[in-house]
């Protein structure tokens, strides 16, 4: 009896270790994307998503209202196709616009929704095309430098 009891405990220990390893592997390999929150899906097209990542937040007025579910590249329009899953508690007008924003100076990038004025609401499967790309710091700096250079020439 004693032997089988030890067997059981050793088996439990090995199982626990294996579960821990699988947990570590899954949470880094992003295979553990079981969706607990159910939401309606909306697709948005962006010219440039910057550093947006799957599972990033979708915020409206700073409140988290959904998650980025998937990011794809559309080789017809050469734009990024971002699938958003929005919390069914909240409804947004059909002409709402999306922006990619950054929390803080170096923080995580997220999608901001700005509500429009349409009386119809967004429904599952809708495509939002009024979007504003992520601010790419390099572009900003180069624009700034070019405008500085142009200023210098005109004087």
């Amino acid at each position, binding site marked *: 009896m004693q*032997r089988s009891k*030890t*067997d059981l*405990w*050793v088996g*439990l*220990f*090995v199982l*626990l*270790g*294996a*579960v*821990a*390893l699988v*947990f*570590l*592997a899954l*949470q*880094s*390999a*992003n295979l553990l994307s079981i969706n607990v929150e159910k939401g309606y899906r909306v697709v948005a097209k962006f010219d440039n998503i910057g550093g947006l*990542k*799957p*599972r*990033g*937040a979708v915020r409206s007025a700073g409140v*988290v209202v959904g*998650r980025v579910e998937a990011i794809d590249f559309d080789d017809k329009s050469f734009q990024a196709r971002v699938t958003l899953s929005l919390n069914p508690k909240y409804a947004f007008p059909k002409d709402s616009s999306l922006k990619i924003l950054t*929390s*803080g*100076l*170096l*923080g*995580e990038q*997220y999608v901001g929704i700005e509500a429009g004025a349409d009386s119809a609401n967004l429904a599952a499967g809708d495509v939002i095309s009024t979007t504003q790309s992520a601010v790419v710091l390099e572009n900003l700096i180069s624009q700034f430098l070019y405008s500085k250079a142009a200023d210098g020439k005109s004087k």
Partner: protein
Amino acid sequence: MKLRRVADLGFMVRTLLADMGYAARLFLRLLMSLGITLRRPSLLREQVHFMGNYSLAVIAVSGVFVGFVMGLQYYYGLQRFGAAESVGMLISLSLVREFGPVMTALLFTGRAGTSLTAEIGLMKAGEQLSAMEMMAVDPVQRILAPRFWGAVIAMPLLSAVFSAVGVLGGWVIGVKMLGIDSGAFWGQMQSGVDVWLDVGNGVIKSVVFGFAVSFIALLQGYRAQPTPEGVALATTRTVVMASLTVLSLDFVLTALMFSI
């Protein structure tokens, strides 16, 4: 007088070399005893039970608290730059790459390594090992080998438990207490941690530490003076040597694995 000093030095070098040779020979014998150990799984199982299951509580509790502390400290540092979401990635990286294997090895030295040394040292003091040799039973194969391989098996599992529990501890502090966005916490972690480069190398590290710690503990026990003082000294030496070996090996392994 000068000649005497030179002779002393020579004696020291000879003793050191002989000790190293003995250690290398014992290590090889332990490595070669894998087949025999696997043919007697009941001995191995007993050792995994003793070293693995009984170390689980101290490993898990330490892991939770290390995760808590890292959550607080990384948050404090990162929220100045508005990058508090990266807490998850940093906690996971530092646990999987360094803290998991190293802390587990150090705790394991204290929890299981010392008892290995004391057990074998006392067996030697009680002349049980000599009695075995008289009966043509090899104590290296019968006593040392199952303990050696048991520790090598238990170490990576304990290290994985430590890291996993630590990540959960960091999540409790970061997400539940400090209010980092949960999706960003996991999302950043997933984009920053690689399965093979980070998790895989962490497992390799803990296996290497398993070899090192259990070998040092067994060597010290096997070479202990068969007196109460000798066993006490051997146990102390196990802790000191194993801790230093783990920390210096960790540096070497990190330099090999992660410096590009």
